[in-house]
């Protein structure tokens, strides 16, 4: 094959092999690297040039077999079957060589040109594994290259080998005759094991117990310590996020407040003065103050993922979830949804049972995402300053509970088909790298900043325009367009305790993006961020504030979430319209309930 013709290389491998890390190292991209089965849920492509050779790299979802069961396995199989893949690079974890080779045999049997990228050699040596890669390579008869994916070690050699491999004849290893006598019919697992034990095991000395799991699992999955540790980890993560970010947020709001004070003294025309004060400093400033909070939120969720702990939470909750008609697999979308519902909905692809997957997608509407969090933090800080952190943790618990109850209801409505199975691999514990965590958090913060500069700003400007028109009215008064719109909609939420114009308008614009809610509250209030509290507390009672928080937690997911839900619902996509309807009904009902109970108690 000539050097000029572009080639396609597919990256395949079991979950948790460092496939995405390798892709990032090869391309300089910053795709998110996770440590739970099913990180890459759809194929990702990247183009690069290596020593003059143009290469299209396709990263396929982590799969265990070419037999397609789950959605992600189907994606991979379809691509491998249909396209002209020149070379398949299979990333393997050398710590579990024999298991990873099972898929290698499948790939070879289907006639693929396979290069093995052998990852985690450093970890293997530390755990006392002794192996001779050269001997194993000779036995297997296909190229093997040692790499350390997260540090990018061996990536040049890997590409060199893959390109050079194209000029060599396609290997036809003899052992395949026994393992895969008929191509396309799958492999004979027993023969594969025998082959490994006879031919490869002599060059591969392993301990009987893989120590890398041992001590940590003994604590995190132990009968007595596992559940306390689980609640401790979850509470610590969220309390940590709030307590670390709040001084940083105070610093930012302080800066905007100082600026606000200056603007008044510039003697600008009233309209411009109002625009700078209300829209830029008040509205947008309030939104931007939440950057540290969101950064920490995504940082911590990435930490849970990368460390391998998130993968284990499936085990902890499975029995409990079985009670709700779902499996522990549904827990990962729940935790991811606390950050953002879009990746959470995509993560449901790892759920093999279609019914369970549909339930997980729809129920994710009730998981309070990071965009709604600013509203909760703002309101909790203003109305319940003494125990804001605990209140937020409690609200999160309510959010997860509602998700589970919704799952029960849907399980009943959709009816039971076959019993659900849970067959999953526990990811190894690995120390997350600061670089990867920061990269992941920055990815989401960047998205937030871009949204702040576009959608959120636009909404706030729109609200401001409604508040100043028609010209001559008092800003935001009942005579303004905003006031009129508010009074039309107010009766709808009046029974919930927050029938005032600013709350109604904030909720209305919040449908576009939940981050708008805090911004519009500040814009309409027309005061500095610091004085926002005084304005809000004068308008509604703490009971109504709680009711407002609950409403914001559950009402209509953002447009992006609804769109991804629609595409993931597949043949049930026609029911997507039910999501906004259902969430509005639930939000209204729960807010009403909260308000009534809170009125009695407070």
């Amino acid at each position: 094959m000539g050097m000029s013709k572009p080639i396609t290389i597919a990256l395949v491998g079991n979950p948790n092999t460092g496939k995405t890390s390798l892709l990032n190292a090869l391309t300089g991209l910053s795709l998110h690297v996770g440590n739970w089965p099913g990180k890459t849920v759809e194929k990702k492509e990247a183009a690069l040039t290596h020593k003059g050779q143009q290469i299209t790299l396709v990263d396929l979802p982590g799969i265990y077999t070419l037999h397609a069961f789950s959605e992600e396995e189907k994606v991979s199989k379809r691509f491998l079957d249909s396209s002209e893949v020149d070379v398949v690079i299979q990333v393997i974890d050398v710590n579990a060589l024999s298991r990873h080779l099972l898929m290698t045999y499948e790939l070879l049997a289907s006639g693929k040109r396979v290069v093995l990228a052998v990852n985690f050699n450093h970890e293997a040596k530390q755990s006392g594994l002794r192996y001779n890669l050269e001997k194993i390579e000779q036995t297997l008869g296909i190229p093997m290259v040692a790499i350390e994916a997260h540090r990018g070690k061996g990536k040049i050699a890997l590409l060199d080998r893959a390109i050079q491999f194209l000029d060599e004849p396609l290997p036809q290893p003899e052992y395949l005759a026994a393992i895969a006598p008929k191509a396309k019919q799958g492999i004979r697992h027993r023969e594969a094991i025998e082959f490994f034990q006879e031919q490869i095991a002599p060059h591969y000395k392993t301990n009987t117990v893989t120590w890398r799991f041992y001590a940590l699992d003994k604590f995190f999955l132990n009968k007595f310590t596992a559940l306390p540790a689980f609640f401790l980890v979850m509470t610590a993560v969220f309390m940590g996020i709030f307590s670390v970010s709040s001084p940083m947020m105070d610093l930012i709001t302080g800066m905007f407040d100082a600026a606000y004070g200056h603007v008044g003294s510039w003697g600008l025309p009233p309209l411009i003065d109002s625009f700078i004060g209300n829209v830029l400093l008040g509205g947008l400033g309030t939104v931007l103050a939440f950057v540290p909070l969101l950064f920490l939120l995504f940082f911590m969720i990435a930490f849970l993922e990368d460390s391998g702990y998130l993968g284990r939470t499936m085990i902890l909750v499975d029995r409990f979830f079985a009670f709700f008609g779902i499996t522990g697999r549904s827990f990962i979308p729940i935790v991811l949804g606390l950050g953002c519902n879009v990746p959470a909905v995509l993560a449901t692809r790892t759920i093999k049972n279609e019914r369970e997957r549909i339930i997980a997608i729809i129920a994710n509407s009730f998981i309070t995402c990071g965009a709604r969090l600013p509203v909760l933090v703002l309101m909790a800080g203003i109305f319940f300053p003494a125990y804001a952190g605990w209140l937020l943790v409690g609200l999160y618990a309510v959010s997860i509970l509602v998700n589970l109850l919704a799952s029960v209801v849907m399980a009943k409505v959709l009816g039971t088909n076959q019993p659900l199975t849970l067959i999953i691999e526990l990811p190894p514990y690995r120390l997350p790298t600061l670089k990867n965590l920061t990269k992941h958090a920055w990815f989401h913060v960047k998205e937030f900043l871009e949204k702040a500069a576009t959608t959120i700003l636009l909404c706030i400007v729109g609200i401001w325009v409604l508040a100043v028109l028609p010209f001559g009215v008092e800003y935001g008064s009942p005579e303004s367009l905003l006031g009129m719109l508010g009074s039309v909609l107010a009766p709808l939420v009046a029974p919930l305790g927050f029938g005032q114009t600013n709350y109604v308008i904030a909720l209305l614009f919040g449908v576009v993006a939940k981050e708008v809610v805090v911004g519009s509250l500040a814009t309409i209030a027309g005061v500095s961020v610091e004085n926002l509290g005084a304005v809000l507390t004068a308008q509604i009672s703490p009971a109504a504030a709680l009711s407002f928080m609950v409403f914001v937690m559950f009402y209509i997911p953002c447009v992006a979430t609804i769109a991804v839900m629609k595409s993931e619902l597949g043949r049930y996509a026609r029911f997507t319209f039910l999501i906004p309807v259902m969430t509005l009904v639930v939000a209204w009902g729960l807010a009403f309930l909260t308000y009534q109970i809170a009125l009695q108690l407070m």
Partner: protein
Amino acid sequence: MGTMKLSALTPGASAVVHAICCEEELKEQLHALGVIPGVRIMPILTAPLGSPQVFEVMGTRIALRPEEVSEIVVVDAIMEATAKVKWA
């Protein structure tokens, strides 16, 4: 060399997978994760709520619900803990 159910094995013991009784799709899924006749499997622990159970097989850890565990028949059981454990 008598066969027994995997569910009868206690943590610390180990045995070789002999047969998997369940229907084809489940069997394929178990095979893909390394639960294959001829492979040594070792119960590690049971989750705090009583299910699922965690096993070590082919250098990895997998979790199975009791329904799947009871479908797996093993032989060559070594009932005492023989594993030398190196702590991390």
